[in-house]
C-alpha cells in the first residue's frame, strides 16, 4: 500500500525560525532585538535596551566610578543570561572586572493582601486576587556588595584583552596606525570566530566592554597638532564588526581628558551615547538635588525608521542614585523648598540669581 498519497500540492511555507538569542527582547517600538543593560531603569528609558549589533559609548564621569558600575551591571546581566563576555582594558587588569561582578538579587515580591475585605458583589471575579504592584520590574537586580561566583561552565565564555595578554604589538602601515587598536580589533575578531557568532544562526551573543578607551594608556596623542583619527577609526571598525554579528559593544571614554572635537565625532559615530556626570564635579548642584549624578542621553539612534527615540516624557536628562543594591534612574526634580538655617557660607557667591542672604534654594 502506498504510504503517503498526496492529495493536493499545497505546501505550507515554513519560514526558517530565528533562534531565540539569549538575553535579548524584541522591542515594542521597532521590532529590533534589544539587549538589556542590567539596570532596569536604564532599559526603560532606552526602549528596552541596546539594539543588537550596536555600539554604545558611555562618556564617563570625572573619576570613572559610575561608568565602571554600569559596565559591571552590563557584564553581570550577560553572565546571568549565559552570554559570551569580552572585557578589554589598559587601565587595569581586565580579569579584575570579570572576577568582581555583582551577584543577582531576588527581591521578595511584596503582595499586599487586603484585610477585612468585603465580599465583592459586582467585581466578584477579582475576589481571590491580591494587589500587585503594576510597575513590577521585569529584569534582574544586582547587588554590588556580593561578588558573583561564576559557575565553571561559564568561565569558558569569557575572554579578555589587555596589557599583559597581548605581546608583539606592531604599528599599522595604513592610516590606522595605533598598535593597541589593531590588536584589540584582532582579538575581537578571533573571539567571534571562536564562538561562531557571525554565522547568523548562533543562539547566543557576545558583550564587548572596552573600559576607558582613549585614556593616555592607549597612546593616541603622539602627534599633538592633529586630531587622533585612530580613535574614531577604531570606533567605526568596532561598529562594523558588531553590526554583522551577534554582538553588542559598550565603550567608556574619559571625555574630559580628550579633545572636545574628538568627543563630538565619536558621538556622531556611535549608536547610543550616554553621558554620566557625578555631582562631585559640580559643588553648586550638590545641594539642589538629592541624586548622586546626572545621566544624559546624548543620542539614541533609531536603526529602523526615522522616528526619534526620546526617553520618558520627552526628556533626555535624568538623575541617578547609585547604591550598593540599586541603581535607580529617575526624573530630575528639585527637593522641596524648606527654609533651612543650615546653609553653609561657601555657597553665598555660587548662584547668580540668589540674594546675598546665602540661601541655597533657588529663589525666583
Amino acid at each position, binding site marked *: 500500500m502506498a504510504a503517503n498519497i498526496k492529495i493536493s500540492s499545497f505546501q505550507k511555507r515554513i519560514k526558517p525560525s530565528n533562534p531565540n538569542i539569549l538575553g535579548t527582547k524584541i522591542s515594542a517600538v521597532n521590532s529590533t532585538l534589544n539587549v538589556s543593560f542590567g539596570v532596569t531603569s536604564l532599559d526603560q528609558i532606552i526602549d528596552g535596551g541596546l539594539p543588537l549589533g550596536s555600539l554604545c559609548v558611555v562618556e564617563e564621569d570625572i573619576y570613572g566610578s559610575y561608568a565602571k558600575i554600569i559596565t559591571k551591571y552590563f557584564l553581570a546581566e550577560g553572565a546571568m543570561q549565559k552570554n559570551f563576555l569580552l572585557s578589554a582594558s589598559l587601565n587595569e587588569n581586565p580579569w579584575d572586572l570579570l572576577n568582581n561582578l555583582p551577584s543577582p538579587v531576588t527581591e521578595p515580591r511584596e503582595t499586599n493582601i487586603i484585610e477585612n475585605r468585603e465580599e465583592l458583589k459586582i467585581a466578584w471575579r477579582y475576589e481571590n486576587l491580591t494587589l500587585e504592584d503594576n510597575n513590577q520590574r521585569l529584569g534582574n537586580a544586582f547587588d554590588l556588595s556580593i561578588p558573583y561566583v561564576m559557575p565553571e561552565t561559564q568561565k569558558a565564555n569569557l575572554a579578555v584583552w589587555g596589557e599583559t595578554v597581548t605581546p608583539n604589538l606592531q604599528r*599599522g*602601515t*595604513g*592610516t*590606522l596606525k595605533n598598535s593597541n587598536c589593531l590588536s584589540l*580589533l584582532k582579538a575581537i*575578531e578571533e573571539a567571534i570566530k571562536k564562538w561562531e557568532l557571525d554565522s547568523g544562526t548562533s543562539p547566543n551573543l557576545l558583550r564587548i566592554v572596552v573600559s576607558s578607551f582613549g585614556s593616555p594608556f592607549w597612546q593616541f596623542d603622539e602627534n599633538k597638532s592633529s*586630531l587622533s*583619527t*585612530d580613535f*574614531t*577609526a577604531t570606533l*567605526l*571598525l568596532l*561598529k*562594523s*564588526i558588531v*553590526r*554583522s554579528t551577534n554582538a553588542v559593544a559598550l565603550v567608556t571614554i574619559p571625555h574630559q581628558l580628550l579633545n*572636545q*572635537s574628538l568627543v*563630538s*565625532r565619536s558621538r*556622531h*559615530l556611535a549608536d547610543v551615547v550616554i553621558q554620566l556626570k557625578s555631582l562631585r564635579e559640580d559643588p553648586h548642584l550638590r545641594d539642589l538635588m538629592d541624586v548622586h549624578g546626572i545621566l544624559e542621553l546624548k543620542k539614541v539612534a533609531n*536603526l*529602523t*525608521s*526615522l*522616528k*526619534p527615540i*526620546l526617553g520618558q516624557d*520627552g*526628556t*533626555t*536628562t535624568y538623575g541617578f542614585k547609585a547604591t550598593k543594591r540599586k541603581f535607580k534612574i529617575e526624573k530630575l526634580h528639585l527637593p522641596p523648598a524648606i527654609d533651612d538655617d543650615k546653609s553653609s557660607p561657601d555657597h553665598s557667591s555660587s548662584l547668580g540669581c540668589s540674594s546675598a542672604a546665602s540661601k541655597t534654594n533657588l529663589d525666583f
Partner: protein
Amino acid sequence: MADTVMKALMLDKIQIDGKSVLIVQHSDGSPFVHSLLTHSARQGRRICLVSFSQSIGYYHNVGTRLGWNLNNLLSKNQAVFIGGLHTLKNSFQSQCPSNPFNFLFNPASCPLQALFLAIESVILGWIEQPFSVVIDELDCLLNLGIEPKEVIKFFQQCHSLIQTYSNGSLVVSIGVTPLDKEITQCSMLLSHWSDLILTERGLQTGKSRELTGTLTVKWNVSPFSEQHFHFKCFDRGVKMFAPGTAVL
C-alpha cells in the same frame, strides 16, 4: 510625506538633474538623505548609494517605511551600494586592494582612488539614464584618517562627474560640530560648490516631542532663496512646518 519635504526644497518644480545638493548636519540630518533617496527612487532614477557608517540593512529598513524597496532595486541593478559597514569589516579581515577602505591598513598615495573608481565605473554604465549619486556622511572619511585635502579632491571629482553627465545629480551629506575646525572648514568649502544647501540643526534648548529640528534651505542657483523651516520626523516620513506652526 516625502512630498512635503520636496515641496519645501522646491524640488517638485525644479529638476534635480545636473545639480548638487549638500546636506550639512549639525545633529541628525538623515531624514533628508532618506527623503532625497525616496524622491529619486520614485522618479525612477538610478541610485548609487555610498555609505561609510551604516549598513545596507539600515537604508532598506528606513526605505520600506518611506515607501521604496532598496533590496528590490539592488537586485534589478537599478541601484548600487558602495561601501558600508560590511565592506569596512571586510577590509579589516582580508586586505584586498580593490576594497575602498584598504587605505586603513596599507599605505596608499591616493587613498580615495579605489572608492572614486568604483563610483565612476557604476556611473559610466548609466550615462543614458537619469541617475543620482548619494554620499552619506562624508565626514566619516575624515574620521578614518584621510586628510581634508583628499576629501575635497574626491568631492571635486564626483562633482565633475555630474557636470559632465548632465542627467545626474549629486547629494552629499556631511556632519559638523562647531568645535571641530577641520570639518567646519571642509563643509564651508563644499557649500560654495553646491547648488542647494540644506543646513539641519537640532533645537537650541534640547529635545522636544513636538519638533525634531530646524532646516535652512539655500539655493545658490536660480531661485536664489533662503528659507527656514521646522520639521518633525515620524515613522513614515517627515513633515515640514513654517517656524512656530508645528503645534497648530
